[in-house]
Each structure stands twice: as C-alpha cells, then as structure tokens.
C-alpha cells in the first residue's frame, strides 16, 4: 500500500511538471503580452522595452529553465499588469471562489447522491425515469446556458434575485445553483449505477435474509459498497473546486479565481496564468491522492493488495 501511494505521489509531481511545461510553451507561442497589456498603438520602442523588461526576448529554453528555477525558490513571478506578485493575486481571489464552490459541492453531494440512491431503489418506476432524464439534461446542458436561463427567469423575469456581482449573499444563490446542477446530475447517474450494481449482489440478499430491515440493508450494507466507485467522481469534483467555476463566474460577474483565469489568459499575463494552473493542478492531484487513500480505507481488499490470495476452498 505504501509503495502504491509513493508511486502515486511521484506521478502527481510529474503531472504538475507536465501541466506547467505545456502551459508555458503554449502561452509563449501565441499572442504577445506586450501588445495585449499595453495598448495596441503603443510605440514599438515601448513594446520592445516591455518585452526586454520581462525577459520575453530571451530564447525560449532559457525562459523555461529560468521559470522552474524561480519556482524552486518559491518565486512565482509577477503580474505584468500591475507588477504585484502573481501568487498573491491568485490567493486573494480564492475565498470568493470557495464561497461559491463549497456550498455548490455540498449541494451536489446532497442532491446527487440522494437522487441516485432513490432512483436505484425505485428502478424502472416513473420517478426513476424522471430522475434519469433530469440528470441527462443536467449534465448535457452547458453551464452558461443554464446560468443565463436562470438569470432570465429569476433576475430579469421575476426580479427576485440579482443577476451579477457579489455584493450580498443573495447574489450567491443563482451562481451556486448553476454550479451545482451539472455536478449533481453526473453524481446522480454514477450513484445510481453503482447502487444498482451493488443491489444485485449476493450479500445484499444475505443481509435481507438475516432479518435486517430494508433501511439498514441499504444504508449499512449497500451504500458503503456503492461508495467505492462513486468516490472517483467525488474526488474529481473536489479537485475541480477551484477551477470548475470559470464559466459560472464569468456569467455572473463573480470576482473569483475563474474570472482571473479568463482575464489573465486573454492578456497573456503569463506569471498569473501559470500560478493559477499550478494551483489548480495541485488541487486536482491532491484530490486524486486522497481518493486513493480513501479507497484503501473503505475497501479492505485494496489494503491487502490485489493478490489477497482469496483462497478458494
């Protein structure tokens, strides 16, 4: 198990490295930060000076090595717009994003899991079919379409809720709902199939035959087993807590990490983009690592290694 985790950890580091390298190369091969940050009709000498000042005229490999060297020393670079430390800019936006992402995550779990379990337990009834259709609609619809529709109905049409900005807690309602629906739909689907698979197993029949009430069979015997595959999906959701809100934040003009990503990519504000990606990749990799650990905790077969020598008599 330990060996397994160490390998996963190293793989995580490799992933980070590859993500950053990829971003680095792509960002520098397209678009010109100088022209994007200073206005397009600035004099060429000013643009040159800008590029020189930010080291953009050096050969690519040199910039690449320089970047990672700085990274190793904890220097994440500076924003080209206002010269403040890139990572600080990113970090100060996190609370705003989390104030959407965390409630949305909680909602996703609650709605998704309960819908999925309920649908599985009432398979092929009208309510199961209804929930499935709902979930298909939920995860196929792009979030901006959903967001705009909600704005149209509740902000413009009914006037109950504000349509943008982050002034009050009411401003958070629509974005949180938009953010949670897609994930809830996916989770519902996964939970449903995991539950259906588990409910068909022999040990569920044993538990019923033992005389346990249905509620206990479902909660105590079925759900822990259904949690195992569902955990992967949940892990992915945790991993995308920070970055998943990009579209929603844009639709609702919410000043979070997502918005920052959009604007800094548009401006090719290199250091900021890379700091953002570093953060996102780290979150994703850690979430996956946690899922691996959790697997071992929930499923004892994983703990004893796959060659658990399930000695058949």
């Amino acid at each position: 198990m330990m060996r397994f985790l160490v390998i996963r950890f190293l793989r995580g580091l490799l992933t980070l490295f590859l993500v950053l390298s990829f971003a680095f190369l792509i960002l520098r091969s397209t678009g010109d930060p100088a022209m994007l940050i200073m206005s397009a009709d600035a004099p060429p000498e000013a643009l040159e000076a800008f590029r020189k000042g930010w080291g953009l005229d050096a050969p690519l490999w040199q910039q690449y090595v320089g970047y990672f060297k700085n990274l190793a020393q904890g220097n994440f670079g500076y924003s080209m717009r206002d010269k403040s430390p890139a990572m600080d800019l990113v970090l100060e936006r996190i609370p705003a994003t989390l104030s959407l992402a965390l409630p949305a995550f909680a909602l996703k779990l609650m709605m998704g899991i309960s819908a999925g379990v309920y649908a599985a337990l009432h398979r092929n009834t009208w309510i199961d079919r209804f929930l499935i259709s709902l979930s298909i609609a939920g995860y196929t619809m792009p979030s901006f379409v959903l967001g705009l529709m909600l704005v149209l109905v509740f902000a413009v049409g009914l006037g109950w809720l504000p349509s943008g900005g982050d002034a009050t807690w009411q401003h958070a309602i629509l974005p949180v709902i938009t953010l949670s629906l897609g994930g809830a739909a996916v989770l519902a689907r996964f939970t449903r199939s995991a539950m259906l698979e588990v409910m068909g197993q022999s040990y569920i029949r044993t538990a019923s035959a033992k005389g346990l009430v249905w509620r206990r069979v479902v909660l105590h015997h079925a759900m822990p087993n259904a949690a195992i595959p569902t955990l992967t999906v949940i892990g992915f959701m945790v991993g995308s807590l920070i970055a998943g809100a990009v579209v929603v934040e844009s639709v609702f003009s919410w000043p979070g990490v997502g918005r920052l990503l959009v604007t800094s990519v548009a401006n090719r504000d290199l250091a900021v983009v890379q700091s953002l990606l570093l953060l996102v990749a780290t979150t994703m990799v850690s979430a996956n690592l946690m899922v691996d650990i959790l697997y071992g905790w929930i499923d004892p077969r994983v703990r004893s290694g796959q060659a658990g020598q399930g000695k058949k008599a």
Partner: protein
Amino acid sequence: MTPLLQVQELRKHFQVSVPEGWRQRKANLRAVDGISFDLHAGQTLGLVGESGCGKTTTARLVLGLTEATHGQVLFNGQPVAAKRDATWRAQRQNMQMVYQNPLGALDRRLNVISQVQEPLLIHGLGDALSRTEQAQDLMVSMGLPKPLWHRYPHELSGGQRQRVVLARALILKPSLLVCDEPVSALDVSIQAQVINLLQDVQERMGVAYLFISHDLKVVRQVSDQVAVMYLGHIVEQAPPQQLFSEPLHPYSQALVSSVPSLWQRSNPKRHILQGDPPSPLSLQSGCVFQNRCPHAQAICREVPPRLTPLTSERQVACHLVSEQAVLPDAPLESLA
C-alpha cells in the same frame, strides 16, 4: 507401444509478488511440481483434484500453451512446442481442447457452422465445399441437426453449445483431446448426454482424452486410468474401479469418501479432512500433504515421497504405503 502422450517430470513455477505488510515479497508458486504420466492412444486419463492442485496448468502444459519450467511433454515421441511457431501450429491439428464454459469458448458473432469449419480453414484443408460438408456431417453425428447450423451461440442451449465446441475440436480429427471440466456447467441430464457422446466419439474416432474434472463421479465414469493431484503432485494413479473401491493414499481416501452416493448412505468410515489446503506458495520440505494427513510421520516432513508403482496398474506417492501394507485406518469396504 509408445504412449501417445508422455509427460516426464513436468514442473511449472510462477514468480509472484506476495504482499507482506507494507511491501511485497517475491515468491515461487509451484503450480505443477514434478508430475509424470503416460496416455495411450484411444484411452482416457482422468485428472482429479481440488482448486489449486494444478490440473488446469497441466492441461496447458500438455498442449504447449505455456512453457514448462522443467521436464518435458512428448507427443507421439516428439516434444510439444511451447513457442507459437510453425511446428506449434502444425501440432494443433493433433491436439485440441474443450473448455468448461461453452458460451465463452465460442464467438458470439459467428454462426455455429462457420465456427465448426473454421479450424479447417485455418489449416488450409480442403476447399469451401468439402469444409462445409465435413462440418455438416460432423454436426449431425453430434446430435446437432440442420435447423441449428446457422444459429448463433446464444440461441442454443448449454448442452448444444458444448456439442458445438466438441465438433469444432474434433473436425481436425485430433488424436488427443484435453477436456477441462467439459460438463461441470451443464445440468445433470445434459451431462449424461455429453458424457455418452464423448464415449461414442472415442469409440468411433479413437481419440484419447485427458479428462480434467473436480467431479469424481464423472471421472470414474469416463476414465481408464485416474490420477489424483494435490498441490502440483500426482499422489495416486490407478484404474477407477481400484481407486474408488480401495484408495491407498490418505488424500485419495478422503477425496473418495467425500463423494456422497445415492445408494450407500452415511458411511461410518468416512475420512473427513480437516482444515483447508495450504497455499501452493508455502515452501516446506517433505510431503505436500503432511499438514492434513492423519498418518504423518517424521519421514513425511523431510523426504517428499515419489510416485512408485505398486502393481502394473497402480502407483502411489506415500511413504506409508508399500506393496502389501495398508494404512492403520482401513479404507472403504469394497463396493460392488
């Protein structure tokens, strides 16, 4: 007469990683650990044993589907190739295999008559017309009439599927058929049909069978000789009548007495074996059966017994069984 199949000191060891606490240990899994037997043309050798005894690995070794760690398999005096080269492919015409799960052994997307013909096609035998004719004739003789020829495997019953698998194996007229649990997945009444069919085929075509099963009743029915395997070793080999009426090895005794009979009830001299079979990973000197043997002596813990002939037909691998002596706990009374 040279036996059709000669297996000599055959061993197959696998390297496995065994989890041990946090780390993993490399261990040697001795699936087959020094077995020897002969099979003559047109005869049936039954191989019985419980899970993990190595019978399926033996089947694979005999067919050259896996390479032996030690020892050899001779077919018609020639060593069986284990590498997938031209020699190996040519040998396929003489030896075939029948499996436990007929649905899994058939292609879901081809109708059954195409599958029966396919071996002829692969080996380039005959033209399209003669292939079809051969397949048709064979299928009819196997109890698969015309209406079934163009069906797909999932449209047939379990018994019918197994006949298709058999036909496919026999169309090349092999001299050896390795049957790995061929009837275990079938209903009892269908088992009887397939067993009878196998016996008819043997009479007609002179095919030799290596019949592997955990079901002793079936093995007794079809075999000319039975070899009992335990943890990679053959512990006893004898004709079925002798083995079942007077098993000599303590394991055979336990095995034979564990089979319930319709007509003879609650045998008071049953030898109930305690505990579970040990893992084929554990290394220990001496006899593999020592942990569960009610008669284990000091010598059993040190020296592994060799399979020694007692009569022209019987062999036993046990220190405590010699020409005339029998073990303290007398085995089952002689049955009819």
